[in-house]
């Protein structure tokens, strides 16, 4: 009989190698491309930092990058803040937990593209929301701030990521031994203090997981800014797509992809470090 380690390695190898290859190889090629330059139809393979220079000096790139991170951060905070009470409710108060979890996850299984599309229809100038409000006599003329701006992007993304925030937080609340909450009460805490001193610190891992799961993909979201962002709501992914599509400048696109990845990683690490150290200070 082969050893346990050999069996484990053999069985997990296809998945590990597949993912590993599809993460590492494109990354290596992206790095290579980012050092090349586009000259009309062909790619000049002389290594140069020209793309990085361009990316750093171009105000549009900087602007879109910062906006992407800010929008993603807003979406993350809004989604997690809105989701926490739901997760708390399902874990500690609801009687039919499974049903609630199912209800929360069902909309997520519909196509992301279609959900964003639905928001576009709802928020539009002649859309569902405006026609409903007009019909009810609540407004006299259509609201224009609903669509094609950052607000629409944040709203749509917060909706799209809801279950991703609820589930990890739910799991972390669910894991709390209820006698810990009773112990806090027994030692003199009211509900608010007890939440701040026990529940919240114990759910920090869930909150961090939720934040990362939302923040990282959101920075690079393409569909939402394209459909509901208008010109004010465009994000870095739109620019990257243009480089691989219409502009046909793959080296610059590769550079932007890498820079986006690095900024996301940097912000994420900063966030994890600061929130864990904050959690440790609660006594």
């Amino acid at each position, binding site marked *: 009989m082969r050893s346990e380690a050999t069996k484990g390695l053999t069985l997990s190898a296809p998945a590990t190698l597949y993912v590993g290859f599809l993460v590492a190889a494109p990354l290596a090629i992206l790095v290579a491309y980012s050092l090349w330059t586009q000259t009309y139809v062909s790619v000049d393979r002389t290594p140069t930092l020209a793309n990085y220079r361009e990316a750093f000096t171009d105000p549009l790139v900087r602007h879109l990058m910062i906006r992407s991170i800010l929008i993603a951060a807003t979406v993350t905070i809004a989604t997690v803040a809105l989701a926490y009470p739901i997760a708390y409710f399902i874990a500690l108060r609801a009687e039919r937990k499974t049903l609630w979890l199912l209800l929360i996850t069902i909309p997520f299984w519909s196509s992301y593209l279609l959900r964003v599309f639905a928001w576009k229809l709802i928020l539009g100038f002649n859309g569902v929301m405006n026609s409903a409000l007009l019909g009810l006599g609540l407004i006299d003329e259509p609201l224009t701030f609903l669509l094609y701006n950052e607000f629409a992007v944040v709203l749509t993304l917060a909706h799209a990521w809801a279950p991703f925030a609820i589930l990890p937080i739910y799991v972390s609340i669910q894991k709390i031994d209820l006698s*810990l909450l*009773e*112990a*806090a*009460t*027994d*030692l003199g*805490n009211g509900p608010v203090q007890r939440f701040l001193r026990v529940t919240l610190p114990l759910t920090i891992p869930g909150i961090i997981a939720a934040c990362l799961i939302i923040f990282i993909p959101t920075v690079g979201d393409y569909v939402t800014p394209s459909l509901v962002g208008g010109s004010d709501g465009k994000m870095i992914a739109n620019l990257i797509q243009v480089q691989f599509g219409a502009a046909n400048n793959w080296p610059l696109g590769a550079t932007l992809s890498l820079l986006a990845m690095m900024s996301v990683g940097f912000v994420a690490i900063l966030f994890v470090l600061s929130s864990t150290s904050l959690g440790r200070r609660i*006594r």
Partner: protein
Amino acid sequence: MTEKNIIQLQGVEKRFGNFTAVSDLNLDLREGEFFSLLGPSGCGKTTALRMIAGFQEPSAGKVFIDGEDMEGIPANSRPTNMVFQSYAIFPHLNVGNNVAYGLRNRGIAKSEIDQRVTEALEMVELGGLQERGATELSGGQRQRVALARALVMRPKVLLLDEPLSALDKKLREQMQFEMRHLQQELGITFVMVTHDQYEAMTMSDRIGVMFDGRLVQVDEPPTLYAKPCNRNIASFIGEMNFLPAHVTEENGKGLTVTTPCFGILDIEKNPNVAQTGRDIEIGIRPEQLEISREKPEDYDGTVQGKVRDVAFYGENVHYHVQVDGVEKPIAASVPNYFHTVDHRPGDPIWLGVQSTSIIDLGQNTIKS
């Protein structure tokens, strides 16, 4: 121990839907005593404890602590603290912060908190472990931290919910004595819930036994063992042989009974028994029976039988003896003085009993 009642439960009842967890519980606990609520799981003892702590409101009746009616007073404002069955050590805090947790709610100066935490940890023999993480503690250490965290609050009553059930046997026995000593030194009233009769008997001043939501008997451990008030308690605490008996004469403190195998005996009436009649049940502890090859002299009742099973326990040996006229074999236990097992299955054997060691258990509830 003083004569003052620190806790009074008056007609306390707890219903969950159609299920009555605790019914008509009346109990006075004296200041400074170590009291145990003993009973099988599901008997309502934990619910009773949680009503004292304030985690559950009684459906009826009143709870007084130190003379004060606790109705409407939430758990966080009661002068009680609890040691939880799981210990409920906060995993995100170190030992020092766990123990200081409750003190920080009271706006006490930092220097005093530090001092009291140090004292409390020394008291439970964990001195100097303030910085140790909660997840790095052994089972015994967790139990000590839980004790220190509750005692540092200087509660009027310390409530303990199965505090030793998570520990292994050796540690459990050691902690029994330590907790007893701690309680006597501090003079704080301890109320412990346990399903372990030995734990209750070794530690407590008094024991209350609960069955099916009812408090059946409250007594000191020796009385509880010698004069259980019914068959349930008799079989729950220690081992007991049960025999039917017919009362032929009743006079003051005594009864004359006819037994199926030990003949006619004059036994003491059990004052704790609630229901009695002509057909009663009697109990004999296995260690009270004499067992020998020849008919034993000077015993009030004797009977001959045959050894069916022998169980060797180390400190003593149990013989199950089949006797004519009695359905179940009678258990007799003999201290293992000489490291020998004197009788084998199949051996003919005599049993002897003194009438003073026979326990009147009142009306026979099994069958006529």
